């Protein structure tokens, strides 16, 4: 009898702790109060410790009571009862969400502690931790979401924080352009997610995962839709997952995302964000049972991504990109595992991989320095690299090398077939509009055409 209120209170703490952190960091920014680095760091640690402790307590209660499915209801956020419209806020603690949320808190805490030292006195310290809080909230909401729209809520927060952190060093154009690229791909993935969610609504009559995936606790649910519908919705969700996890053909954004500061690279592209796509596939895994074709599509996509990641990884010349492609390889393998119906294996693989990759990425900035110090101390090269006769290479090997070096030509493919035709079409429309308004005006109609790219003229205005 007493268990339910305790679980509810703990659930509120788990979800509430990142909300409090975001408010505590965001509100002073709005009203112009400058928090010190120490205060921000303490707030971050307090939030992680509170959330993690509550999540572990929930796990403990679930183990003691033998419960596998604990829904925490927050009621309707908005509703129109007459039209049977409800936006239901519901979080679920089960065998999938509890490990993932604990993993999220552990890795966010680790990376937060690392970042508070790594970014000490950096100009963007405040911006980093605000986006970090947004990310943490997004991860917790996504992990615990009990309805597809709640999952989308968290999914969007993760996407925004991720893109803005890629552009963290915004004095240079390259990180900014890469951030925009990441955001664009996320928006496409989000659109696919939304359309899938809408289709699911119309097929099953609701957004609650319990209704969508049957009443059994994860992963034993049975999808309540037919094979064709499962294939349609599943393919859309696969597209969303591919975009979010950087799978083929969206892998081009993975190395671009490495422009961000190391802590964000670690937590986003080594650990959590890159796994959010596969987490979505795990969450809707009962759909795969309803369609063999969908299962095949998931396995093929995973396999292609893994092979591509492994190939590209071998030719990268910097450690962060090499690690990013190594992550992608593992994400591909995890996807294959999901496609084969090995949900628990995939979950364990995901957790292990996230922890290892976080460690590697956090270690990356200092490992070379340590290595050189060691070589200086020893007085000779430690690698044992010796120049030898170059081996002959076949044309296939050369092609593969170039393919890997050009990162599978995936960016070029997207540019040539999607981005460029889109821009060309709309620039043509723009040009037509210019002619039309000039014709109507009886002369040149656009003053803005004369603007130079960098014509900052404050003094002229004043």
């Amino acid at each position, binding site marked *: 009898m007493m268990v339910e209120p305790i679980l509810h209170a703990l659930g509120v703490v788990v979800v509430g702790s990142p909300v409090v952190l975001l408010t505590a960091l965001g509100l002073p920014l709005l009203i112009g109060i400058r928090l010190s680095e120490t205060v921000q760091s303490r707030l971050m640690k307090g939030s992680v410790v509170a959330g993690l402790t509550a999540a572990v307590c929930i796990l403990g209660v679930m183990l003691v009571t033998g419960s596998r499915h604990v829904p925490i209801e927050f009621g309707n*956020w*908005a509703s*129109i009862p007459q039209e049977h419209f409800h936006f239901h806020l519901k979080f679920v603690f089960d065998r999938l969400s509890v490990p993932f949320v604990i993993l999220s808190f552990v890795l966010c805490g680790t990376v937060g502690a690392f970042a508070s030292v790594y970014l000490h006195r950096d100009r963007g310290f405040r911006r980093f931790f605000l986006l970090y809080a947004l990310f943490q909230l997004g991860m917790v909401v996504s992990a615990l979401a009990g309805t597809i*729209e709640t999952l989308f809520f968290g999914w969007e927060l993760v996407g925004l924080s991720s893109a803005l952190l890629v552009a963290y060093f915004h*004095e240079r154009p390259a990180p900014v352009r890469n951030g925009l690229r990441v955001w664009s791909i996320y928006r496409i993935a989000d659109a696919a997610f939304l359309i899938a969610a809408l289709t699911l609504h119309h097929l099953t009559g*609701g957004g609650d995962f319990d209704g969508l995936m049957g009443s059994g606790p994860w992963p034993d649910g049975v999808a309540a839709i037919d094979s064709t519908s499962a294939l349609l919705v599943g393919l859309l969700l696969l597209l969303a997952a591919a975009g979010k996890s950087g799978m083929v053909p969206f892998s081009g954004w993975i190395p671009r995302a490495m422009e961000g500061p190391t802590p964000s690279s670690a937590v986003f592209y080594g650990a959590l964000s890159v796994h959010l796509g596969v987490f979505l596939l795990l969450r809707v895994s009962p759909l795969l049972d309803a369609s063999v074709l969908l299962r095949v599509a998931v396995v093929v996509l995973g396999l292609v991504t893994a092979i591509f990641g492994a190939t590209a990884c071998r030719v990268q010349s910097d450690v962060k990109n090499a690690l990013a492609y190594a992550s992608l390889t593992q994400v591909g393998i995890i996807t294959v595992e999901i496609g084969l119906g090995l949900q628990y294996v995939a979950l364990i693989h995901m957790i292990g991989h996230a922890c290892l990759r976080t460690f590697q990425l956090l270690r990356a900035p200092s490992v070379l320095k340590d290595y050189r110090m060691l070589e200086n101390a020893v007085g000779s090269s430690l690698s044992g690299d010796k120049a030898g006769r170059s081996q002959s290479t076949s044309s296939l090997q050369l092609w593969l090398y170039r393919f890997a070096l050009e990162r599978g030509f995936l960016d070029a493919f997207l540019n040539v077939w999607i981005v460029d035709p889109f821009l060309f079409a709309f620039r043509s*429309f723009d040009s037509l509009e210019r002619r039309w*308004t000039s014709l109507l005006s009886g002369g040149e109609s656009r003053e803005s055409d004369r603007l130079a790219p*960098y014509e900052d003229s*404050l003094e002229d205005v004043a």
Partner: protein
Amino acid sequence: MPELHMPWLGLSVLLPLIGAIIASLTKDRERARNYSVAICLATFLCAIGEWIDFVTLQSFEAHDHWNVFQLFGPADAFVVDELSAPLLPLGALLYLATVLTTLRTKLNRFSFGWALFSESVLLATLGCRDPWLVILLLAVGVVPPWIELRKRRQSTQVYSLHMGLSVGLLIAGQWLVGTDASADNPPILAGCLLTAGALIRSGICPLHCWMTDLFEKATFGTALLFVTPMAGAYVVMRLVFPIAPAWALQSIAMLSMMTAIYAAGMALVQHETRRFFCYLFLSHSSLVLVGLEMANPIGLTGALYVWLSVGISLLGFGLALRSVEARTGRLSLDGFHGLYEHTPFLANMFLLTGLASIGFPGTIGFIGTELLVEGVVDVYPLIGFAVVLAAALNGIAIVKAYFHVFTGTPHIATASLVCRPTERLTILVMVVLIIGGGVFPQPGVQSRYHAATALLKSRGVDQATQESAAQESHQNHSAEGSSLP
């Protein structure tokens, strides 16, 4: 018909009219600005009073106390109803915020007298439901931007042609509407003419060029004040919605959807911030029209809610952009201007208001867009998916513009570019509305649902039909939440 406890509507219209005379007679621009701020604030408070008074009456419509408008037209011409009650404070807020954020650098360019006159005309239009008076007020509202274009020695041909055509079509259409016109007995030709007139005013593609031309040639403030109240959508609701058959509304929705996607695409390829804002706004206002024309309770509720959310968020977005322009001059989107370090507050507000307009989670637009998409998918699933696509493109355009304006090599300025207190206050109010509306959406949803059902009744849609449709909808795909951009 119930009566408000105070003449809120009369005061809301008369105060800015008197203020316009005072401001135009005041030679000192700084003093004229201060008078305008005071008048706009008083008008805003009256509009808020009207809304609160109306809500406490719990009626679909209400007369003003001491209905002074009886002197100018039919007794029931000026009333506050579910549709206009929140639009009046939104309109007043629009003017207050714009006047408050007008910096000294813009005092000589921005006409406070004409701005207050426009406010008076706008509030009268929003409080009017007599078709002929609505058309007359709409025609009068076109004049202040035209005068500004003339004063700035800019070509008025594009603007005059489109606005003239719009007003002409509205007059012809209304002239042909019979007294017995209704959704069941639609006057086809009159409906088409009225629709065409209203859609030109809304900037529907391909007759939208007047809007980009206005943003090019007028001051940013004037252009913002002219388009943001979405007078075209209001005309559709007052003149077309009650008499148009369902197929006609859905045709308008198709046109609006195409405009939304076209404008979203165009926003992505613009080289200059004003034109970018114009297309972004056009895309959003077209999405509102899509929902309005679905004529089902959820879609209409969503559209009415998005009308408010887009009004607030794009107002904040436009003002943030205008504040940046006041510091740097017109901005190109071909380079990176590096203004973040100077104005982090404006940068954050730019991003927040932009994201709120696309219905980002946690902001005022989230639930509205949710309802809109849900309602549209109920009628035309493919159009629902197109709404999602338009929102995705708008999202990319907003972040792209943010990057171009605020990131890049830090701008070197010889003067401080930090936010002025009035700007900070205005934008903070916007943020409170955006976040507050996002965290507590239920009162807004409930209010807009009442308005939607009342509007559907005005079309003669029988309640029993609505209920059976809702029942059927529930059986087929009862919506327990949904999704959204």
